[in-house]
């Protein structure tokens, strides 16, 4: 009886909407055989995005987008709200997963030539989704309204300010005025929660529609070239002869990976937790070393390593060039070979970009260019003598900021060269000249050090090689003395 009523209700619904047939057709539409595990990343990104929507809505039920209150609310969510810390972690690692998976999906699509005819517009919508995803990540970092978020906002405004003609306008648009303050956070909130997600929804809908319209590309075969004149007929023939239904023949792999993504994100949120809240968002607190979340760290490193004077060009022109180039990829190469074995330049380009990003990322996580402000004065054991000029020189090495940029026996910053054995490389006179004149990344100390101070500092540096070997110890030796 109940079963019959339920069936009648379903039939009535279907007769009026046709949705069951529509989604049934979509799920069972034929796809090429043997798509394999390389084809799972698109759906994995979608699942990560859905997680972001769900966890984001939950967080938004508590979040207050007010510059004056958001920090206290974040403290409440993190330390007091039931499951608040876990949910923040899910949202953070969900964002990280989304960016990582978008990157992998894009590389897979590029290397397998899936962007070629007739899927050019799907590539274009994917490129747009990539940059909106990055914008979502950045605006999300700023909603973590602590001191790092404040300075990251200033940094972004400064970068936008380098845009020719409209730089100041863009910077003020970002800040919501001429200073950071009340209007800034609510602006980011509106973008992060309404505007950018709406764009993602629209573009994902377009992306999926095009997947259905043009079909999933068959795995590439060496020698099988894309010819726009014959492609559709060949594809239809392939589906007719060897096509398999998407559900469940191909979709089971997507489900396995999607569940893996959810479990991984939840595990990271549980065991690692969300990023620590920094100090309150007070722009007058200056003891801060702002750095972006991990996915933008490589770009932060690029900005540090660029030759002087190139930043303005690079900050604006390079991202623009990257966007234009990515949008042009399917225009320039929309036919021909798809298999990566027959496209060595495509493989080389991907390798070069990925290795560069990894290299810059490692460099950015070390940040050798940042002065080490927390370097402690050299210990008596490390100085290794009680000779007054040398001891005074060691103290000057710390007080004058040399130690923030230079290392002695493993202690100090990495901005400049290691000076443990500088007297091996330079004569006393050369050391004196270098300190006085500076150059490159080193300031001139001629107007900062007195004659006696310079003598003492040079005496200290020279003593590193004249002291007994045991006292010019290695970094490990220094660690043992701590």
């Amino acid at each position, binding site marked *: 009886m109940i079963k019959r009523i339920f069936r009648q209700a379903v039939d009535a619904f279907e007769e009026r909407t046709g949705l069951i047939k529509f989604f049934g057709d979509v799920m069972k539409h034929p796809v090429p055989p043997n798509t394999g595990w390389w084809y799972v990343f698109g759906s994995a990104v979608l699942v990560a995005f859905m997680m972001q929507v769900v966890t984001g809505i939950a967080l938004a039920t508590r979040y207050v987008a007010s510059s*004056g209150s958001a920090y206290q609310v974040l403290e409440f969510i993190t330390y007091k709200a039931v499951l608040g810390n876990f949910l923040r972690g899910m949202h953070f690692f969900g964002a990280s997963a989304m960016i990582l998976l978008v990157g992998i999906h894009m590389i897979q699509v590029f290397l397998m030539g899936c962007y070629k005819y007739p899927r050019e517009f799907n590539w274009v919508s994917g490129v747009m989704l990539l940059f909106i995803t990055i914008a979502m990540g950045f605006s999300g970092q700023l909603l973590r309204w602590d001191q790092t978020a404040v300075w990251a906002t200033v940094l972004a*405004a*400064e970068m936008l300010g380098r845009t020719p003609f409209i730089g100041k306008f863009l910077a*003020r648009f970002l800040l919501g005025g001429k*200073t*950071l303050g009340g*209007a800034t956070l609510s602006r980011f909130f509106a973008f992060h929660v309404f505007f950018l997600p709406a764009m993602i929804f629209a573009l994902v809908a377009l992306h999926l529609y095009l997947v259905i319209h043009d079909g999933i590309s068959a795995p590439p075969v060496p020698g099988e070239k894309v010819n726009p004149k014959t492609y559709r007929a060949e594809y239809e023939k392939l589906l007719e002869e060897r096509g398999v239904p998407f559900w469940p023949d191909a979709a089971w792999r997507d489900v396995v990976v999607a569940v893996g993504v959810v479990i991984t994100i939840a595990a990271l949120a549980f065991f690692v937790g969300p990023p620590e809240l920094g100090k309150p968002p007070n722009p007058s607190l*200056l003891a801060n*070393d702002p750095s972006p979340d991990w996915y933008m760290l490589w770009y932060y490193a690029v900005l540090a390593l660029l030759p002087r004077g190139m930043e303005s060009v690079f900050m604006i022109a390079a991202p623009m060039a990257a966007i234009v180039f990515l949008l042009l990829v399917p225009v320039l190469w929309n036919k021909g070979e798809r298999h990566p074995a027959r496209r060595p330049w495509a493989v080389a380009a991907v390798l070069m970009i990925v290795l560069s990003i990894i290299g810059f990322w490692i460099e950015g996580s070390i940040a050798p*260019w940042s002065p080490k402000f927390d370097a402690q004065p050299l210990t008596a054991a490390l100085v290794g003598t009680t000779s007054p000029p040398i001891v005074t020189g060691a103290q000057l090495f710390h007080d004058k900021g040399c130690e923030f940029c230079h290392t002695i026996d493993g202690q100090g910053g990495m901005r400049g060269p290691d000076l443990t054995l500088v007297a091996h490389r330079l004569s006393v006179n050369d050391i004196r000249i270098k300190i006085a004149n500076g150059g490159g990344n080193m300031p001139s100390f001629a107007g900062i050090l007195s004659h006696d101070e310079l003598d003492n500092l040079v005496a200290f540096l020279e003593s590193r090689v004249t002291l007994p070997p045991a006292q010019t110890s290695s970094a490990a030796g220094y660690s043992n003395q701590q």
Partner: protein
Amino acid sequence: MATETREPCCEALSPERRRFMGRLCIALSAVAAAIVGIPVVGFILGPLIAPEKDIWRAVGAADSFKPGQTVNVKFVDPSPMAWAGVSAMTAAWLRRLDSGGFVAFAVNCAHLGCPVRWLAKANLFMCPCHGGVYYADGSVAAGPPPRGLFKYPVRVRDGQVEILASAVPIE
């Protein structure tokens, strides 16, 4: 039994009229979009359109600053909002010159805006982000900054040092 037949209520639109009606619909929609869109865009761009005046902020008695010293002074930014909380605060590095005058440097590195620190014993400003270094007079000593530290106008009124609180320095 007579069967009723439905008569067409009206003639189909002529091609010209159909084209006209299509264009009319687009035009009317554009008008509706403008009615909604213009105030929305104006509201969002409001902070850029409405002029915000710079404001003199007192940061301390002139006598409390020693000649040759550079100190961090905190003050409220020029356009604080009631709900801005601590984010309305800002700061400057105030230096009293040996001649008695004052110079106020923005705390923002001229490279990318990070907060520079004053190393009193070294007489240098250093930036934590990318290692920019400035001399005590704000000129570039080393690193990537393309120019020296930005300066705010300073004056002494009724024995109080006042800094002209203004926009985040962006060039």
